């Protein structure tokens, strides 16, 4: 049929056949109907060339064009010409000024353009980036960094000790904070001042000894003094300046952000010439972009879409275990949860393995064992709980639990993978045990307000993340990171002891002592069960096999991790 049509078309072009307007209309309608029918039947024999239409559609690179024009072939081939990689995510940052926004999403954008003194690698170990050497305090207060020589921001100004000092001074400036600058890092680190020792050596000095400071150096982007000192905040919000491997080109808010390779980058020019981050809120649209070849990586994949990606030979499904510990927060100050045995019983009452398997599609690897997750830091003597409803019942009875009282489980409808389904499954387990449990869905701002004001009067699903470093992770329940609503410190027997040991770990820089203290803290915490540990949150990505990109555990999206080569297009 295709050959016949081809022959007819050739004859029409040669003028051998004359078509009337009615003939053309009829032919067009027939072709459209046939194509629609084929499409509806899932046929792929229609080989209309892909319309790589315009830049705003995030049109694919030459390699992607080769892929789609070959009828969505499994083996992409061409890599000549400028290479472009398109990432589609569900959201975008409100601003590109890192000292004005603390959401996780800004990091995924700025990691390609700006750099920290240090960075977490794929194994969650802290590695130097802008710093050539980094030194923890010998006096408990002074962190010393020697920077690589010859690093430059895109405007040609040097990345030096002055830049580090400018970054901290800008963040700590009271006038700036009154204008909405909200960078919490220097305060969390307890930074007092920054000394420029020489152009490449800088000392960050804290007011008090604090082991919390160390991993947060992986969170503070070093800013270009000349640019950020001369531009207004509404200018830096939409056009960043950095020293990273890709340079900012443009940002059409709500649509896409474009970057181009920094040819003068101090670690060498990245292979990918153009990086595009598209904002696509709907998950099925993101999947369509991947299938069409308009995106190479899609984030926030719905677990229900995972089989579609896995079944297609052109794509692979990547999952990243995040540092978010999903748990049920138990307000220990509430009469019904005051008895430690009642809280412990909840660990046995909920079939976490089934939730992981049947609700979350098996993507979190396993039930969380301790609140500390950085390799080398979890207490090896703590074992994960197993589902045992009989044990739960006997513990609750021993605690004198009133089975007639209503139990609420607060959650938000969004904020994590299938969060509401998980809440329903938890409540079903509690109901099976005989509790009068129900899910209470809160608006995310109401939820956050309650969490931060410690106002939860019953169980809530929480999700806490922290920089991957044992001494910081044990800060989560103390209020030092401001996120817990369980009243663990002030309403449990182990709370004061925990706080005392935690103060020691904050001021102990000896590695062996730190490990010993962190182990003790985990044991104290688990004994009280203020959190019912569930699993680590997982992010799913759909990736076109033409790129070797893999997500990371801490930052999730990074195109050039320390100690690795940059992300490549390999097809």
């Amino acid at each position, binding site marked *: 049929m295709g050959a016949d049509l081809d022959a007819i078309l050739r004859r029409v072009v040669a003028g051998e056949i004359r078509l009337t307007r009615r003939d053309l209309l009829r032919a067009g309608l027939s072709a459209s109907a046939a194509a629609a029918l084929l499409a509806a039947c899932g046929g792929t024999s229609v080989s209309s060339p892909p319309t790589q*239409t315009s830049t705003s559609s995030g049109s694919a690179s030459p390699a992607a064009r080769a892929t789609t024009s070959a009828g969505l072939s499994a083996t992409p081939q061409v890599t000549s010409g400028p290479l472009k990689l398109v990432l589609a995510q569900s959201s975008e940052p409100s601003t590109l000024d890192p000292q004005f926004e603390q959401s996780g999403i800004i990091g995924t954008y700025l990691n390609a353009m700006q750099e920290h003194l240090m960075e977490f690698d794929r194994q969650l170990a802290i590695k130097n980036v802008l710093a050539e050497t980094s030194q923890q305090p010998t006096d408990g207060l002074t962190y010393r960094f020697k920077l690589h020589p010859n690093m430059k921001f895109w405007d040609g100004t040097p990345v030096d000790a002055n830049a580090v000092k400018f970054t901290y001074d800008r963040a700590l400036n009271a006038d700036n904070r009154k204008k909405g600058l909200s960078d919490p890092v220097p305060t969390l680190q307890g930074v007092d001042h920054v000394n420029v020792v020489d152009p490449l050596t800088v000392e960050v000095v804290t007011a008090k000894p604090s082991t919390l400071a160390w991993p947060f150096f992986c969170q503070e982007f070093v800013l270009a003094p000349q640019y950020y000192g001369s531009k207004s905040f509404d200018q830096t919000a939409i056009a960043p300046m950095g020293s990273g491997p890709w340079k900012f080109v443009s940002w059409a808010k*709500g649509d896409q952000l474009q970057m181009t390779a920094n040819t003068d980058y101090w670690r060498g020019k990245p292979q990918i010439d153009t990086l595009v981050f598209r904002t696509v809120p709907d998950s099925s649209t993101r999947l369509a972009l991947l299938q069409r070849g308009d995106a190479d990586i899609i984030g926030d994949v719905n677990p229900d879409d995972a089989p579609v990606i896995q079944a297609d030979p052109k794509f692979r499904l990547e999952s990243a275990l995040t540092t978010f510990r999903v748990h049920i927060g138990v307000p220990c100050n509430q009469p019904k949860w005051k008895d430690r045995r009642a809280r412990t019983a909840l660990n046995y009452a909920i079939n976490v393995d089934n939730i992981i398997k049947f609700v979350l599609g098996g993507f979190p690897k396993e039930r969380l064992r301790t609140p500390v997750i950085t390799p080398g830091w979890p207490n090896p003597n703590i074992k994960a709980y197993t589902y045992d409803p009989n044990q739960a019942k006997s513990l609750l009875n021993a605690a004198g639990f009133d089975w007639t009282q209503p139990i609420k489980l607060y959650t938000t409808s969004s904020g994590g993978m299938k969060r509401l389904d998980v809440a329903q499954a938890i409540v079903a387990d509690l109901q099976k045990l005989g509790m009068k449990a129900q899910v209470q869905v809160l608006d995310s701002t109401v939820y956050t307000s309650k969490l931060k004001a410690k106002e939860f009067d019953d169980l809530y699903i929480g999700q806490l993340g922290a920089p991957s470093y044992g001494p910081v992770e044990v800060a989560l329940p103390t209020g030092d990171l401001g996120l817990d609503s369980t009243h663990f410190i002030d309403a449990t027997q182990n709370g004061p002891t925990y706080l005392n040991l935690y103060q020691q770990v904050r001021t102990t820089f000896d590695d062996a002592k730190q490990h010993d203290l962190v182990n003790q803290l985990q044991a104290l915490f688990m004994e009280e069960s203020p959190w019912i540990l569930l699993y680590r949150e997982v992010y799913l990505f759909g990736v076109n096999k033409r790129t070797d990109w893999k997500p990371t555990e801490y930052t999730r999206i990074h195109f050039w991790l320390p100690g690795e080569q940059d992300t490549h297009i390999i097809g």
Partner: protein
Amino acid sequence: MLQYVVRRLLLSVLVVFGVSLVSFGLMFLSGDPASALAGDNWTRAQIDEFRHQMGFDRPWYVQYGEFVAHAVRGNFGTSLRQHRPVFELLMERMPATLELTGSAFLLSLCLSIPIGILSAARRNSVYDRAAMLFALAGQSMPVFWVGTMLILIFAVRLQWLPVAGRGGLDHLILPAIALGLFPVARNARVVRSSMLEVLGADYVRTARAKGLPGSRVLLRHAFKNALLPVVTLFGLDIGYLLSGAVITESIFAWPGVGRLTVDAVLGKDLPLVEAAVVVLAGGFVLINLLVDLLYGVLDPRVRFQ
């Protein structure tokens, strides 16, 4: 007439003021903006300090009064999250929203009127039944489902049109169809029933008896008189299209005001929410005023008092 317009304009100002007051109150009741704006790693002391610095610890009427005092001078403030003037942010996104809603409106206008007129003229014919089946289906299918199906068929399978994003005319086709389908379907039904009512009137029979051609009777005598309820609906469509555009903008990753407003509501970006509400409500009220004035043009019996 002038007196009527002035009175309606004054009432419009009151309506916009009321809408902004209600939306401010609802935003105020829905939780602490300082907590929402704070990062996860903030301590309670940092949040308290931030709340005080931003003035969120003042009574609501003081905050609202400050907003109104600035707004009447054209200053809607600075976005709490984006740190840019909110009016600038709105105007950046407005062309995309107008492009989308305008296309959907045009689609509705160009399709629903001929479909409705022809259906009425050929009542109970195959055409009429097919058109009303289409209208029923168009009204029954939710916009998110239509959008997803359009993407699957025309962008993924056939690869005729782009999946999402804003660009050339080709980017506009699928979102405009998805958004415009409901008003096309509903208005076609209304045009049909309105036409049927008029076609049974004495003056139409008289026109036919005079031997006027069918098309002239249909368009000159019947259609003009059937227009009043249709014009009302088209006026209301502007509101539907602006609110329905939020879903369409999300599905097609269209960078319009709807998505900006929803993000602002979720992020408790009060100045941006208020500005969006004032601009959208103001636009809606003005369009309805224009529709009311149009009545007088279409039907000389309508008097403005």
